[in-house]
């Protein structure tokens, strides 16, 4: 029988240490909506999403109340729209109509974000892929809840540098079109290498073509819980440190597993995976950077940060894997700058630079995330940063991503406010030397030698 001590421990995690289930994401395949008539396609998409997801938000709220654990977000991911719209969309404007339909459907069912305005172009772009990518700035400017992602590389295929070059321009254009709102559009656009098919976290979620018709994926969280557990073993050796993280990750993940099973049973939709990521929020005490400090760093970014993060990421996975029947998605520690108060503080203190963040992404999920850079940064420079990050993912056989926000009209040292879970960020300096000639080359970077495993 459960005892008072255990009950209090769980409830303290929830009430004082920000334990929550970050998201229940319902993946919906739109492949059966495909037709060559744009109006019918839009109708099919709207009908399918609003039918399959009609009870998602209500079910999430029921589970939240019954188990007494907050479920922060209920979201939807759909099949990459470049595939769905390939036949019906003859122009980028046609694709934007689908973005508006997705936005309407998301509003109707009450989810705060819908991901999947995406293209998978790791080896090359089809005409539809290119049209979709070129439509991203308009799509994100005209919608509230739609999130976009583009997979431009993989360990198996290499990196499509034509797409990387194009995305540098697309990111700047998105920033320009949403400059009235501090270039917020870019916060909803992720560039990936090795993007997973079952990621429940925004803005990079999409429902991969390898997936079933509908599936429930759950993202857990709990940086505050890990931080608190570590504060109880301050000064202990690495063995104790690692064991503590593992045990805590296990407990946190079990809550996610429970919520996923319940949601799946109540909605009659199969359970896909639990994503074991430690996802921070701007709330005080819900920070991955604070865990790094608790491990022994003055600020995130100090020497030792990469090692501490590698250790943290590995132990979270080791603890979480046994707690869930299926693990997938991104699964690791997130290090977004604007969504983590400890990271913001580290940037302000001068401890954390873009280059150190890049090093950190070698050992954790996911990448250069929610980083505000000056609005006058060149498109080729953004493409260069993307190429670097994609190369890390390609060579290390891991997912990496870039979500940069060039804030139009603002420069280094100024602050940008996105609001809500997206937080706020100091604008970080970018290396000023040119990579124009490199980014200007056509074609793709070949797959690395260790991808040839057959």
């Amino acid at each position: 029988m459960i005892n008072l001590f255990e009950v209090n421990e769980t409830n303290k995690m929830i009430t004082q240490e920000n334990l929550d289930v970050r998201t229940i994401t319902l993946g919906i395949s739109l492949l059966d909506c495909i037709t060559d008539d744009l109006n019918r396609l839009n109708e099919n998409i709207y009908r399918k999403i609003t039918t399959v997801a009609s009870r998602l938000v209500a079910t999430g709220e029921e589970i939240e109340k019954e188990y007494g654990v907050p479920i922060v977000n209920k979201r939807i991911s759909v099949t990459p729209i470049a595939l769905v719209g390939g036949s019906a969309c003859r122009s980028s404007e046609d694709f934007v109509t689908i973005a508006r339909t997705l936005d309407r459907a998301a509003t109707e069912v009450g989810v705060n974000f819908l991901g999947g305005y995406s293209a998978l172009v790791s080896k090359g772009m089809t005409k539809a892929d290119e049209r979709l990518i070129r439509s991203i700035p308009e799509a994100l400017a005209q919608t509230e809840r739609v999130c976009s992602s583009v997979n431009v590389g993989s360990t198996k295929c290499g990196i499509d540098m034509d797409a990387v070059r194009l995305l540098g321009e697309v990111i700047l254009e998105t920033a320009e079109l949403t400059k009235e709102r501090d270039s917020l559009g870019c916060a909803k656009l992720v560039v990936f290498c090795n993007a997973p098919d079952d990621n429940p976290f925004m803005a990079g979620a999409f429902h991969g073509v390898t997936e079933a018709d509908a599936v429930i994926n759950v993202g857990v969280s709990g940086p505050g819980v890990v931080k608190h557990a570590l504060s109880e073993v301050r000064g202990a050796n690495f063995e104790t440190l690692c064991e503590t993280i593992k045990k805590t990750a296990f407990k946190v993940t079990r809550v996610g597993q429970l919520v996923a099973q319940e949601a799946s049973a109540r909605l009659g939709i199969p359970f896909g995976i639990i994503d074991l990521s430690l996802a921070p929020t701007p709330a005080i005490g819900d920070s991955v950077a604070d865990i790094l400090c608790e491990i022994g760093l003055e600020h995130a970014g100090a020497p030792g940060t990469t090692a501490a993060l590698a250790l943290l990421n590995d132990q979270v996975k080791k603890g979480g894997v046994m707690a869930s029947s299926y693990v997938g998605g991104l699964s690791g520690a997130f290090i977004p700058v604007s969504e983590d108060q400890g990271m913001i503080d580290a940037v302000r203190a001068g401890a954390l630079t873009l280059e150190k963040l890049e090093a950190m992404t070698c050992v954790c999920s996911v990448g250069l995330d929610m980083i505000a850079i000056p609005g006058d940064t060149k498109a080729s420079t953004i493409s260069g940063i993307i190429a670097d990050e994609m190369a890390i993912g390609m060579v290390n056989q891991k997912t990496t991503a870039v979500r940069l926000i060039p804030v139009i009209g603002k420069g280094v040292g100024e602050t940008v406010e996105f609001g809500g879970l997206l937080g706020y960020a100091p604008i970080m300096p970018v290396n000023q030397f040119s990579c124009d000639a490199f980014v200007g080359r056509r074609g793709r970077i070949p797959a690395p030698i260790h991808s040839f495993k057959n």
Partner: protein
Amino acid sequence: MKKTIITVVGKDTVGIIAKVCTYLAENNVNILDISQTIVQGFFNMMMVADATQSPKSGDQIAEELEAVGREIGVVIRCQHEDIFNMMHRI
């Protein structure tokens, strides 16, 4: 049988258990076990209850008990036992 765990935390005062039990009786929730401690004037109680015969749903009972708690100045949480079982038992 699925059980419900009710916890009450707050400043000790007269009639906390009475209030909670009255609500449970009125809503046909059977109490299976109670444990209680007072640490430095703070009241800390856990009840294991069976709410399967209640006409109300789990989330409804949770909401109403929370309101009862607000009336008497304590925090009452009512949760399905599985959240604790999942976290503390393999």
